[in-house]
């Protein structure tokens, strides 16, 4: 009928029964499940170049690895983890510990965690499920996870899928935040966010350049991490050195050399030559008829007994008039009729002085200043203009000289820093310990905005060089482990690799690092494959039985786990 729409009059609508014939929720559900994206990569023993949007997010091309199974068993691994809760703490008896803060919702507030981290909560930040703003007190619950033991106990996966490819994430700190009122969870109001300043210690390849990390939030519905933002990392002053570090002495020497270089820079910058800035001439001040003047012999009477100060002031100001300054404290004019026993004069800023008139029981503080009248002022002003021009010229020359000196100093110090780094590199090369980590530990603050409650991670994809072997797993009695969650940690990377430990699994690891692998046994004990055992793996053989040592000890709390998994 028309050119743009097909207008139809009185179309016969289908009957209710006819519509119902088209209803088939089971078919819809089946289709929905079939179209759900796969949760892990089918084929895992591959290297990928990470491109597109994710690469843009991290501003780098990253090599990403898959971990886990041979092609035949990889589907099993996907199904194995799919059947579990996405966040799946391995030891039920160890409950996470949260710090709780009571927040007045009308005011918000700043809350500090035991690590020095801070949460900045805005006012009116919470709403209920129905979008209604919450008033009164709300309890914010907060915890931090920093290392492989925290990640292990939390059961939070440290890998994420993007376009069907699985990546591993290295963390610079992870937090979980939620809020409750009267035991009921509340939500973040639209447009509100909590500013998180997460203090952590991370390995940095370069002492003074913050490494690049991103912010991800765990989406427990989609079972994946969602990129949120760039992590705004700030390096704190503190560099952490541990005596157990095999490179401790080399690192300490390097840091000490750098500190000496910095000290020399400070000293050099502090020398008279560098800092003796020319002094600007002071402009003469004009007489103001609204303020009383002081007697001509005012200086003599005030400074009697202090000939040096008197001479200095006379030389500076000659026979000028002294006047009460506009900035002076309020005074009673009868003070000028009193014969004062003594007085003192102290310089203030802007050519003003504090004059204190003293009697037995009374003191009157006044601000006074030297001023000129009429032609004398005009002459002084003309002289001042000349002095000012000379001063500006001298200042420009001084600045140029200073810049030149600083450039030369920085070049020298840069060369010294470079030499110190070369000495450090040579020292660690001679230490013949390939598994030691030459990076430094530095304290940092991760800064980000949590726009909703849940689990937030400051992390980045990692690009490990690794070798792998086809694995079987057993305990020290020869009893096989199959269909168990395996955990693998590389000491150089702050993450945990979770995989299906079963016959035929491939275990990727960096032979140039220290690695540890473990499973939780059926009776809730830990069975470990230790770093020294990793060193004995013959990679050329291509297959290996990981004979895990059962630790015959009851696991009751986090400390137990830390002691068992320490390396």
């Amino acid at each position, binding site marked *: 009928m028309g*050119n743009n*729409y*097909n*207008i139809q009059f009185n179309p016969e609508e*289908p009957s*209710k029964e006819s*519509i119902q014939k088209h209803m088939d929720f089971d078919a819809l559900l089946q289709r*929905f499940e079939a179209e759900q994206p796969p949760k892990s990569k089918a084929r895992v023993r591959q290297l990928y170049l990470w491109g597109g949007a994710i690469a843009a997010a991290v501003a780098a091309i990253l090599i990403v690895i898959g971990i886990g199974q041979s092609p035949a068993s990889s589907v099993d691994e996907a199904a194995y983890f799919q059947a579990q809760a996405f966040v799946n703490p391995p030891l039920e008896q160890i409950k996470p510990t949260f710090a709780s803060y009571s927040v007045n919702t009308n005011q918000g507030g700043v809350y500090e965690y035991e690590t020095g981290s801070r949460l900045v909560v805005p006012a009116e930040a919470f709403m209920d499920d*129905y979008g209604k703003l919450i008033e009164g007190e709300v309890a914010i619950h907060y915890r931090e996870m920093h290392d492989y033991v925290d990640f292990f106990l939390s059961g939070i996966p440290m890998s994420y899928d993007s376009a069907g490819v699985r990546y591993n994430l290295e963390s610079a700190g992870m937090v979980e935040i939620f809020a409750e009122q009267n035991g009921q969870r509340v939500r973040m109001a639209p447009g509100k966010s909590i500013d998180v300043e997460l203090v952590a210690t991370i390995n940095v390849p370069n002492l003074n350049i913050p490494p690049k990390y991103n912010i991800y939030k765990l989406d427990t519905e989609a079972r994946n991490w969602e990129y949120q933002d760039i992590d705004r990392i700030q390096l704190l002053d503190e560099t952490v050195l541990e005596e157990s570090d095999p490179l401790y002495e080399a690192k300490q020497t390097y840091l000490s050399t750098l500190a000496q270089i910095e000290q020399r820079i400070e000293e050099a910058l502090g020398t008279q030559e560098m800092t003796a800035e020319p002094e600007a001439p002071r402009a003469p001040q004009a007489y103001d008829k609204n303020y009383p003047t002081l007697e001509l012999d005012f200086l003599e009477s005030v400074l009697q007994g202090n000939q040096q100060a008197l001479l200095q002031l006379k030389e500076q100001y000659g026979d000028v008039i002294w006047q009460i300054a506009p900035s002076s404290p309020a005074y009673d004019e009868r003070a000028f009729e009193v014969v004062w026993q003594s007085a003192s004069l102290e310089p203030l800023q802007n050519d003003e002085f504090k004059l204190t008139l003293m009697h037995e029981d009374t003191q009157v503080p006044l601000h006074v200043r030297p001023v000129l009248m009429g032609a004398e002022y005009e002459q002084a002003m003309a002289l001042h203009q000349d002095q000012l021009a000379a001063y500006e010229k001298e200042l420009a020359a001084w600045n140029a000289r200073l810049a030149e000196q600083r450039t030369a100093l920085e070049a020298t110090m840069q060369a010294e820093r470079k030499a110190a780094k070369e000495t450090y590199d040579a020292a660690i090369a001679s230490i013949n310990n390939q598994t030691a980590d030459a990076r430094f530990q530095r304290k940092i603050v991760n800064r980000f905005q949590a726009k909703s409650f849940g689990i937030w991670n400051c992390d980045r994809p990692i690009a490990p060089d690794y070798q792998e072997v086809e694995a079987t797993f057993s305990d020290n009695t020869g009893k096989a482990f199959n269909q168990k969650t395996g955990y693998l940690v590389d000491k150089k990377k702050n993450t945990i690799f979770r995989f299906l430990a079963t016959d035929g699994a491939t275990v990727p690891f960096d032979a140039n690092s220290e690695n540890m692998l473990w499973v939780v046994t059926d009776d809730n004990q830990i069975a470990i494959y230790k770093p020294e055992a990793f060193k004995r793996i013959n990679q050329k053989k291509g297959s290996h039985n990981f004979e895990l040592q059962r630790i015959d000890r009851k696991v009751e709390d986090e400390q137990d786990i830390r002691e068992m998994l320490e390396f």
Partner: protein
Amino acid sequence: MSVPNRTVSTEDMQEEWLEIQAAQREPARFRPLYNRYYDPIFRFVFRRTADESLTADICSQVFLKAMQRLPKYEFKGVPFSAWLYRIASNEVAQHFRNSQKNRVVSIEEKDFSDMMDEVNEPQNELSREQLLQALDQLKEADLQLIELRFFEQRPFKEIADIVGITESNAKVKTYRILERLKKKLTQ
């Protein structure tokens, strides 16, 4: 809950939100929502296709997308049906874009007659033809408002929820379109 009224009470919306949350946790629990809204969504789509088989296909796609997007659904004080109508409206538009055919606008004779009164047109063949031509020239968004209000008799509150604007904005926009139609018809 029974088949929803055209405007939904806050209590009903809150009760329904519990069902939605259950479905967010477990997709199989989307069934009661599907059963409740299949019929109205089907009729909504049918009025824009006039083809039962095509409508069934589009409905299937509407509910699939609803399930896929459900984890991100947040309660904002608007009936769940409005969210479904919006998905349906987009799916219909997508279908007609892909097929490069004109989408259907279904009008009951009586509703059209009422609309002629609304724009002060005499009830004769010439005026009728002129109004149809004027409607045909409307932009999709404008026609949708006229359609929802005059050809489907929906209250402004529901129209606002479906289109994603405030109720007063829906009223203002609708009457401005009417004014434009009147002006066009008097030229």
